[in-house]
């Protein structure tokens, strides 16, 4: 192994290039700041995406030894340790753009309540930011990346003046909207970072419905095309690909002085000095990096003398319910692809007057997988076999409706990420342990979530596929990790100030979802983008003023 040290000192060193790191790089470079960015992977080549490869074509290609791009980091390369019987299913994409290459694109504003609810119910700390402070950044992000959506403006889902035209819902979505209306549940237009008309040189979407395989024309937001490329065009961004950050180095003054990293494939060790470090490796990897940065002044990990970092991991609970609506049974088969995923959304639902609400916080609902898809795996749950089964599947195929509620998990000090004292990865970086479980509040909320789904499907007179009340997806499956390096106004209970700057290390910023004090019931990426923009605006101003 070889250790290489670069003689240069980066003005700003960013770790990670997903939503958070991409935004930080874009916003700083356009303000004249020189940035070096370390990314654990490399650019995914859009020309090689299998966006338009249908299932039978995929099989034929694979038979010829071809493979689609591998977005996901394999657990064999970076194992995650969990206690027996308590798995945490961590999804990671290492490479330029991170998980935004394949994300679900649901782009929702948090509401004022999302930010200050902890102050009302007393559970852990509120955000040090209000909706009023975040709103201008939501406006800017939506204008920059393009988010399609309706003109709904709901108490739990603030509206926007900047939405691109929303795609028309599919038949099943209208029918579910009506059923929900009868059940007293409001359904609104979905909001997704898909450009339904050409926007800032991207798109438009051509409704092929294959976003999960990566969009070969970049018609949905991904950090690589929408942020990194323009940042590179300024000439002020240098990206080091395949650079796995291991440790933030600190000087005698306790300030961040650079990063030690490894070549992903070469395994060579390098150090890069920097005046300021921005951590944006996504919640869990950022946390591992911070905890592994144990300089003389930071025996418990950098900026962690109060032992907050690694704790309060919070995600969301989720399950899936499927049914078939009678109006569409045996009917014509349409192309239901659209922008892939739901064209509708259920903002947080609370029964009138909070009736029967015996849990804190709340849940919203997505509806992916309406109508004719590229498969019929629901058929496995129909009884029997033979011509009857075949007929049954065909009849139900256009009538499929799918409900996927997401509920907030409360932050708890014991839900935490730590470093394993013994086991290490190929570079010698300690493996992380994720110790996480849900509690009574989530189980009670899950009951309410099931009831809402049942009421909607009942009102739709739907035939419901068998399900087990109370069943939940494996923890981690919602891929919305937060909380382990949270912002707060009380430095004793938080690691970062309201601008994602470490209380203890002023030239260190952590701008991804780790900084969120709560998980909310919503998909976080729009807020990650808005928040990283806000934080790096502050950072640039502090730099200009000579304070960091």
């Amino acid at each position, binding site marked *: 192994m070889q250790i290489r040290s670069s003689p240069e000192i980066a003005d700003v060193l960013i770790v990670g290039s997903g939503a958070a790191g991409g935004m930080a790089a874009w916003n700083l470079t356009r303000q004249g700041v020189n940035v070096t960015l370390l990314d654990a992977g490399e650019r995914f080549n859009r020309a090689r995406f299998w966006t*338009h490869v*249908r*299932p*039978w074509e995929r*099989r034929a290609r694979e038979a010829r030894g071809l493979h689609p791009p591998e977005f996901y980091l394999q657990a064999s390369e970076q194992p995650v340790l969990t206690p027996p019987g308590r798995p945490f299913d961590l999804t990671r994409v290492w490479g330029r753009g991170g998980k935004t290459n394949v994300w679900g694109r649901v782009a929702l504003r948090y509401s004022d309540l999302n930010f200050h609810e902890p102050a009302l119910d007393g559970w852990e700390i509120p955000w040090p930011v209000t909706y009023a402070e975040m709103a201008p950044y939501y406006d800017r992000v939506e204008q920059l990346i393009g988010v399609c959506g309706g003109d709904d403006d709901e108490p739990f889902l603030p509206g926007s003046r900047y939405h691109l035209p929303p*795609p*028309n*819902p*599919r*038949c099943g*979505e*209208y*029918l579910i*909207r*009506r059923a929900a*209306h*009868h059940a007293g549940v409001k359904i609104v237009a979905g909001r997704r970072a898909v450009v339904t008309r050409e926007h800032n040189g991207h798109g438009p979407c*051509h*409704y*092929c*419905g*294959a976003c999960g395989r990566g969009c070969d024309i970049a018609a949905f937001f991904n950090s690589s095309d929408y942020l990194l490329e323009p940042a590179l065009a300024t000439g002020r961004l240098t990206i080091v690909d395949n650079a796995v950050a291991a440790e933030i180095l600190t000087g005698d003054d306790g300030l961040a002085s650079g990063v030690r990293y490894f070549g992903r494939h070469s395994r060579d060790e390098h150090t890069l000095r920097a005046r300021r470090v921005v951590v944006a490796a996504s919640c869990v990897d950022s946390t591992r990096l911070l905890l592994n940065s144990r300089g003389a002044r930071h025996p418990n990990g950098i900026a962690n003398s109060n032992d907050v970092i690694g704790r309060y991991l919070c995600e969301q609970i989720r399950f899936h319910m499927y049914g078939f609506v009678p*109006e569409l049974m045996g009917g*014509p*088969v*349409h*192309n*239901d*692809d*659209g*922008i892939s995923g739901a*064209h509708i959304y259920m903002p947080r639902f609370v029964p009138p007057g909070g009736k029967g609400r015996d849990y804190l916080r709340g849940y919203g609902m997505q509806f992916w997988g309406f109508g*004719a*898809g*590229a*498969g*019929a*795996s629901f*058929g*496995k749950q129909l*009884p*029997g*076999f*033979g*011509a009857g*089964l*075949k*007929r049954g*599947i*065909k009849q139900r*195929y256009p009538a499929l409706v799918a409900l996927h509620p997401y509920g907030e998990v409360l932050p708890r000090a014991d839900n935490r990420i730590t470093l394993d004292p013994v086991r290490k990865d190929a570079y010698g970086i300690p493996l992380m342990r994720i110790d996480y479980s849900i509690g009574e509040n989530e189980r009670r909320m899950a009951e309410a979530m099931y009831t809402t789904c049942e009421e909607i499907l009942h009102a739709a007179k739907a035939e419901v596929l068998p399900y087990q009340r109370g069943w939940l997806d494996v923890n981690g499956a919602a891929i919305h990790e937060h909380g382990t390096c949270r912002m707060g106004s009380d430095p004793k209970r938080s690691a970062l100030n309201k601008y994602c700057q470490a209380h203890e290390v002023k030239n260190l910023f952590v701008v991804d979802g780790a900084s969120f004090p709560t998980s909310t019931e919503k998909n976080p990426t729009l807020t990650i983008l808005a928040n990283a923009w806000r934080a790096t605006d502050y950072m640039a101003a502090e730099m200009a003023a000579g304070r960091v």
Partner: protein
Amino acid sequence: MSTTRRDALKVLAATTSLPFAAQGATEPKNFTAEEFAVLSRLSDLILPRTDTPGAVDAGVPAILDDAAGRSPALRNTLREGIASLGGAKFLTESEASQNQALRRISGLDGAAPTPFFTALKNEVIDAYYSTREGLVAELGYHGNVPLAEFPGCTHPEHQRLD
């Protein structure tokens, strides 16, 4: 060789030729020729040819062969299940008694479906509805293509709120 086994092999010759001829392949990689013939028959019992192609028409047995190559557990489950149905002898039975045998393990008679039946049915469904025959000819799927506009629902009766 016993008569039944000889009969079985005759049926086998008649049935195996089809999926592999259709696929242009030569022989199964993860099953014996007899097992594969039974697997083919079972696939067609689960999703038979009707006015549209059945599982064998769609090349499902070869897809199952590949799947078994990727999963030793699946391969075992399928091989043991085939053996429990009598192996190649199954092919000499009448269609009615083949259906009867499948019915017994399917859960339709009250007991839970056997792990073999569940694995087989799941694999056949996943495979069949990922082929052009299953997805396009049978179900009418015509997605994953570029469109200038997405029409969505065009039925006012679906769009009412009350």
